[in-house]
């Protein structure tokens, strides 16, 4: 009687191939998981940056004048129905630890006399990247706000929005460092008209 079925060799080859494919699939699954996570974070940060930029420009352009309180805080003089009030846009590190960025905010205070009313413009904020140092490492600046020489009231704004500086290659997924540099300038509209006259 002839018996039909696998030979031992066929069985071994098939098992080896199955193990190979399973291992490969698992590796690919982990990689896909990493990349999807990284992509989602990057999209999230870009979206957050876009929203924050639009809001900051809106508040600066809607003010009558502006000046620096510090390199991380901008004061705005804005008109209200009750007269001119002082507002501010500031960087706040809630836990005084720059490395933990989820509670590093840029906040808008519409009236500095009533500091309990604030709006969080964005989180995951850190100082702007300025280039590389002599040993090739990433270098960070200290100014988020600065007055530009080109016009008496134009404010230059720059910050980094994204993962903390100590996160690359950490965590289970080891996705590295996602984020975006935000750099732009804005001018209070009223003052600009007076200057050009």
């Amino acid at each position: 009687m002839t018996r039909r079925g696998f030979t031992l060799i066929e069985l071994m080859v098939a098992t080896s191939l199955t193990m190979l494919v399973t291992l490969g699939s698992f590796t690919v699954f982990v990689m896909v998981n990493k990349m999807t996570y990284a992509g989602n974070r990057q999209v999230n940060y870009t979206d957050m940056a876009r929203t924050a930029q639009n809001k900051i420009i809106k508040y600066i352009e809607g003010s009558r004048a502006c000046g620096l309180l510090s390199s991380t805080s901008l004061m705005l003089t804005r008109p209200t129905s009750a007269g001119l009030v002082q507002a501010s846009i500031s960087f706040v590190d809630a836990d005084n630890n720059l490395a933990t960025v989820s509670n590093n905010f840029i906040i808008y205070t519409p009236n500095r006399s009533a500091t309990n009313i604030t709006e969080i413009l964005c989180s995951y904020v850190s100082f702007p990247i300025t280039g590389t140092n002599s040993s090739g490492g990433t270098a960070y600046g200290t100014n988020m706000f600065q007055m530009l020489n080109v016009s008496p009231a134009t404010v230059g704004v720059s910050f980094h929005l994204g993962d903390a500086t100590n996160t690359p290659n950490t965590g289970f997924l080891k996705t590295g460092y996602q984020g975006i540099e935000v750099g732009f300038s804005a001018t209070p509209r009223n003052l600009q008209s007076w200057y050009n006259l």
Partner: protein
Amino acid sequence: MLAEIVIATALTLLVVTSILVALMRSTGLCYSTAQHYAGYSLCRETIEQMRGANYGMVSEANFPSTNMFLTHLGGTARIPLWCSRFCTNGVVELSNPTRKRVTVAVAWSYRGKDQLEMMTGYIYLK
């Protein structure tokens, strides 16, 4: 029998590789989008500064080409990405009404491909 298994394995690998390539491409596009947004901000910054400056000061000579920092490469390679911002032949005088058409561009290279973000605006004489 063995041939069937080999073909099935090859097909599975082909599909999985395709998915991986597609995901790598889409992640690259996420970074590219962020770079273009950063470039857009830099273009807007120059036009905003031109708008804030005196009308007579708006010229290519006063806003020369500069090499600057755009953003970083993202992922595990946190390497700063440099760009060039320029408005070469980008300031054109127009009349009725008197105004200048300004074009600012930011150029950089990413994964061996040249990228460009460009913005045009008008500065009016007040």
